[in-house]
């Protein structure tokens, strides 16, 4: 057990990579074997992730389960040059939650891709590479590897969307999957340009010769002047904000989510967008506290625009998947507002919202994917009363919808109420304004969700939709896992909230201490 506990973090990266290599050497025509390998690997990863949750000791807090491999020393120039670049793994409360989210979405994503028809092998290899990158970002405490895994998770998206995705027909024009794939990749890499520059700047300014976040954190007060922190924090929030779907750089996200195949949408909207918010916390707020302090109002405004703008855009869509895509933009706005509140409740809520929204969006896309698979359309003007034909998919969608509008008893409510409280408490009277706008956003969410639910799912069905396939048993299982997590997170959020609090507290203390 100790052996597992010591090396548990590297396992989360290695297991997807092992899965990818196993599938890579399996002959391509053995479809079922490939699927079962994927299922087994992701199930083991899921267990590992739960073990991480159990092993993390909330009472002592801080960074735990450290794992270190000295990768490349930077000879000569610096005091800590011998540390140079090392694969420094560790988790705090925030990472534990994110890793748990990733493991869940990974498993359910594999279940949702059971009906992938062509080039199964390539699909799962890329899928696991993507997941290895995501896990790596959440547990790296080294800026080089943080960036390495970040880029690793961007690269497979291009092919995953470009080949297995679907184009959407807007009647007057067609938005092709190739376009969406290219747009998504270039936007994300454009974001990483800013992050890269900021990382190099932090590295040079710290002058230690190491990329280790924990070491750099020690010299923040001495080495980073205010202006430096402001410039770099701006680059960090724009760079990571692009990935988090921050207005006005969000346009890749609905296009990308819609074009992607089901499981990739689940991973992408569910987990990958969280990398952005997570990066703002891990690099921005931890390393540049004064910069964070002075630029957070900007993030608050942008987050607020996200909430309102995303909700109104979702209201205007006729494509079921675009509604979900814009609702993601809107919900990521809550996360950004929570981060920007710089307040204990708000920050906790933001991280909890990241978790809750990840699970919820995965459920959304699972349902929409199943509906599209059997109905061959996502047009909400055509779809009517599908609950009779596809009960499971409809229930999943309605459930996710209710979570997204913040129904008490579901995890979305717990997260959003914390964010609202945090925003109201911050920035004096302006906080009240932002808080009210955020609550209004939740109101608009209710409109577009309930409108969908009443017409698409409970409306009077057309005669011509017989012979419709319902969801497969794997999709049902995936949906049930997600529903259970949402219910658990809504009815008994305490273990999750405790976990997040233990991670959020040192970061906030650091920022408030820097004032």
């Amino acid at each position: 057990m100790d052996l597992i506990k010591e090396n548990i973090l590297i396992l989360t990266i290695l297991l997807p990579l092992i899965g990818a290599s196993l599938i890579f050497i399996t002959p391509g025509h053995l479809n079922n074997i490939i699927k079962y390998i994927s299922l087994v690997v992701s199930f083991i990863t899921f267990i590992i992730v739960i073990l991480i949750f159990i092993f993390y000791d909330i009472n002592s807090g801080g960074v735990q389960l450290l794992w270190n491999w000295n990768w490349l020393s930077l000879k000569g120039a610096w005091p800590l040059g011998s540390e140079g670049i090392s694969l420094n793994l560790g988790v705090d409360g925030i990472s534990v939650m994110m890793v748990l989210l990733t493991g869940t979405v990974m498993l359910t994503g594999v279940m949702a891709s059971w009906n992938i028809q062509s080039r199964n092998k390539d699909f799962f290899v890329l899928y696991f590479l993507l997941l290895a990158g995501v896990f790596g970002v959440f547990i790296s405490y080294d800026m080089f590897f943080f960036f390495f895994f970040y880029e690793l998770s961007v690269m497979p998206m291009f092919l995953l969307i470009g080949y297995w995705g679907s184009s959407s027909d807007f009647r007057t024009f067609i938005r092709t999957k190739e376009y969406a794939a290219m747009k998504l990749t270039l936007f994300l890499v454009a974001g990483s340009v800013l992050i890269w520059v900021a990382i190099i700047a932090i590295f040079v300014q710290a002058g230690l010769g190491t990329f280790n976040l924990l070491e750099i954190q020690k010299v923040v007060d001495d080495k980073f002047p205010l202006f430096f922190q402001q410039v770099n924090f701006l680059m960090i929030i724009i760079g990571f904000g692009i990935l988090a779907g921050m207005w006005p750089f969000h346009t890749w996200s609905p296009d990308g989510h819609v074009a992607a195949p089901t499981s990739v949408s689940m991973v992408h909207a569910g987990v990958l967008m969280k990398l952005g918010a997570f990066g703002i916390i891990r690099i921005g707020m931890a390393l540049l506290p004064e910069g964070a302090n002075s630029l957070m109002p900007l993030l608050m405004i942008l987050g607020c625009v996200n909430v309102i703008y995303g909700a109104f855009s979702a209201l205007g869509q006729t494509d079921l998947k675009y509604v979900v895509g814009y609702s993601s933009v809107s919900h990521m706005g809550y996360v950004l507002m929570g981060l920007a509140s710089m307040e204990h409740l708000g920050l906790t809520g933001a991280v909890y919202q990241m978790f809750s929204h990840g699970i919820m969006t995965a459920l959304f896309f699972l349902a929409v994917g199943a509906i599209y698979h059997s109905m061959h359309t996502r047009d909400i003007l055509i779809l009517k009363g599908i609950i009779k034909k596809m009960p499971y998919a409809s229930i999943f969608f309605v459930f996710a919808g209710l979570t997204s509008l913040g129904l008490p008893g579901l995890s979305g409510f717990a997260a959003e109420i914390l964010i609202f409280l945090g925003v109201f408490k911050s920035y004096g009277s302006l906080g009240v304004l932002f808080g009210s706008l955020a609550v209004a956003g939740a109101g608009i969410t209710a409109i577009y969700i309930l409108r969908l639910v009443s017409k698409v799912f409970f409306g009077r069905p057309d005669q011509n939709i017989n012979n419709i396939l319902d969801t497969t048993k794997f999709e049902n299982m995936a949906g049930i896992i997600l529903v259970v997590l949402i219910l658990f997170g809504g009815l008994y959020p305490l273990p999750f909230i405790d976990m997040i609090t233990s991670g959020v507290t040192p970061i906030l203390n650091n920022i408030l201490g820097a004032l």
Partner: protein
Amino acid sequence: MTINLDLLIPEILVGSLAFIILGLDLFLKSKYKEYIAYIAATGLILVLIFSIIPIWNTKANIYGDILVLDGYAIFFKAFFLTFGAVLILSSKNYVGNNFSYIAEYYSIVIFTILAMMFMVSSAEILTAYISLELLSFSLYVLVAFNRFNNRANEASIKYILLGAFSSAILLYGVSQIYGHLGTTNLVQIQQALSMNSEMSLGLIIGFSMFIVGFLFKIGIVPFHMWVPDVYEGSATPVTAYLAVLVKVAIVALFIRVLVVGLMPIAQDWQLILIGFSIVTMVVGNVVALIQSNIKRLLAYSSIGHAGYILLGVAAIGTLDQKGLILVDFSRLIVNGIILHLVSYSLASIAIFLCIDIIFGNSEEEQIDSMKGLHDRSPLMSLLITASLISLGGLPIFAGFTSKFYLFNSIGTQISLWYVGIAIITSLISLYYYLYVIRKIYIDTNKDKTVINLPILTKGILVFLLFALIFIGIYPNILMEFIYHASESLL
């Protein structure tokens, strides 16, 4: 003056190998001639093992001060021999199918390797010039080797004219330097420069001409016009040769000349080189966006990569208040440059090898005809994708690690804004790399004939893929060699 000829054994052996192959051609029956490639490659590897490795730690001057043998020179000699062998093996099928004079081809290739080995160890600029000319003359022949092909002839004429022109500029610079300083030895030039602070007009012209000559040979904007035409016109193995070994050799010589000879006047050339490199990165990568021919696209992409490397070269010349070089940081940049050269070489060899298999000797290497390559040859698709992603600088391939190392070390020396521009142009380059990947994997083609690869080619492709990934995730072993090289230079 000591004449320690034993340190020249690698060069002597390589020269003899070239003549042996030329001689073998007379005696071998034509059906055995295809084995000449194996002889050439084995010969180079044997030279590497039995004569380079024993002198690995040597540091000495040969023939007085004409040649120098240090870690830097030895590293690059090993680099040329290894990659020369890989390139010879990878061009075997193409050469066997398309060229009528097989032995001559290989012996000229080995002569170029000999020239490069002299280039990297030359300690004075006239020797550097002479070995550069040996290289250029061999290359003029190689570019025109496909002699019934009009494009090859056109490319060759262009290359000869512009090559002669740039050599003339370089030589004029050398003569001015010699006229004003009375020496061609790099160390003595450095001493002379650090003693008198004032530079005469003639000397300024001399150094400018000298540097411009090099920029011409590397293919830096605005002296890049020959690059796309020559790359497009030459036979693909020769293009690979030009894009990889020749570029590396000239950059290696250029770094030595600047670091050893011209360091006292670093603040005079640093900003100029930064300017050239930014123009090069932007023009190379932007013009590549509109190319429809894969070889031209790669030519512009290689111009862009030359820009990144030139930015690194410029960053080496940062001096502290006393006018001394910051040894630790400069070493880091040299490491970065060499690492990037290696990763660029691996990726370029891989992609050019795939191109010459896909297109053979056909005239038009259009990107569109790579559509649906995935159905025809999964291994080559994988390798092209890996190399393009590596060139674009995404993990897990060597390109990410080397770009990160290079840009990070540049960032320690000069303003981060320049690094920012470099990273943005790297983003632009990703667009056209992804465009090619899209053609290969996403678009489909009616032609689904499977391309059968010979076992040798398969082996080389797998080796290159392995090397790309290995350097990407564990560069330590290579870095040890690179440290050895950069420590002896600075």
